[in-house]
């Protein structure tokens, strides 16, 4: 592999970033962008340099029906948004409260199942999350007690291929996923170390991805994410 692009490729990258290519060359460049890291780096550098020009372009709010179409083709829940006043902060705050009420109801069931004793009543302000897959019933209920740095899980894992395992991730405020471990039983307990415990905070996301046996080989999720949910203060 060469360490530097030749002049033709450098111009292809620059003109791709600028948008000056005809359709045929644009498709060639798009392929290169997806498969050649060196080419992509050159394009990315140009994008970063040229993007400020877009400040000249006025923003125009799209018709709400566009979101409905996007939600329909991605399988993302669109329901509540349809009736919302567009971009209303109050609406989103309302939705957050509603979601946590749903999470609380699920967690009440998790925490106070007779004889389970998952959390002792005197534990202060645990963090909780319900992990859903595309609007289905919760795949996993999680609660984290800052007192003893213990993450309790109750999971209903889908049927998996023999060669795959489910790995649990924390995506904290910095956006970099941290592995919390592999899921293999119906009810689980993770004792988190101090570094990871510190990153467990409200607004962080827990997610489960499918990985090769033994867990992700790279330290970052490599397989599809089958469920995710946000941490909330109970």
């Amino acid at each position, binding site marked *: 592999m060469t360490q530097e692009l030749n002049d033709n490729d450098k111009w292809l990258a620059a003109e791709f970033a600028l948008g000056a290519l005809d359709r045929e060359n644009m498709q060639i460049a798009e392929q290169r962008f997806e498969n050649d890291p060196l080419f992509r780096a050159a394009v990315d550098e140009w994008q970063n340099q040229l993007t400020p020009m877009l400040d000249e372009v006025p923003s125009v709010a799209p018709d709400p029906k566009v979101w409905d179409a996007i939600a329909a083709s991605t399988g993302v829940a669109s329901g509540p948004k349809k009736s919302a006043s567009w971009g209303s902060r109050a609406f989103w705050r309302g939705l957050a409260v509603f979601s946590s009420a749903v999470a609380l109801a699920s967690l009440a069931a998790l925490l106070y199942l007779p004889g389970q004793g998952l959390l002792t009543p005197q534990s202060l302000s645990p963090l909780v999350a319900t992990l859903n897959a595309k609007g289905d019933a919760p795949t996993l209920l999680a609660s984290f007690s800052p007192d003893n740095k213990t993450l309790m899980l109750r999971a209903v894992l889908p049927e998996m291929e023999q060669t795959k395992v489910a790995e649990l991730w924390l995506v904290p405020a910095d956006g970099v996923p941290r592995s919390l471990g592999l899921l293999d039983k119906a009810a689980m307990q993770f004792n988190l170390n101090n570094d990871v415990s510190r990153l467990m905070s409200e607004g962080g996301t827990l997610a489960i991805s499918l990985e090769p046996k033994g867990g992700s080989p790279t330290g970052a999720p490599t397989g599809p*994410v089958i469920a995710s949910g946000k941490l909330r203060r109970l």
Partner: protein
Amino acid sequence: MSNPDPIAELLSRVAMRDQAAFARLFDTMSAKLFGISLRILGNKADAEDVLQEVFVKIWNKAATFQTGRASAVAWLSMIARNQAIDKLRARKLSHVDIEEQEYLADTKPSPEDNAVSTNENQRLKNCLEQLNPDHANAVKSTYLGGLSYQETADLLDIPLNTVRTWIRRSLISLQDCLRK
């Protein structure tokens, strides 16, 4: 990271299939990306189609953002521009008459529009001002309007090779200027 880019953070959650983050990303960025598509396509219905394709792409490809070097806004804008340009070129191939700028936003950029980049914007503006005005115009028509070399040549009524030379020379000057 002490001060993470909020858009990049939303993108990494979208990569984890976080639906609320995806909805919030749409709330935050759709007007900007719709404006970009509209500028290139000049037609509301086409720009809406493109915006939909763009967000489906974002949902499916969010994980690839982290493997590159582009800023979150640059990455999102590129998807929107490329999708709009592709539609523009496809439309021209099918020989459909285009109503020039059928839909033009009559609004000026709002203060929020400028929030996307401030220092970088000023630096690029200064560098563009140092170019020959005709050359700067060719760069802007190409980048903002999604015009190919041939279309810019037609628009400015100059030969294709002249456009290519102007733009390539401008890009080299811009890069030198921005690196100073």
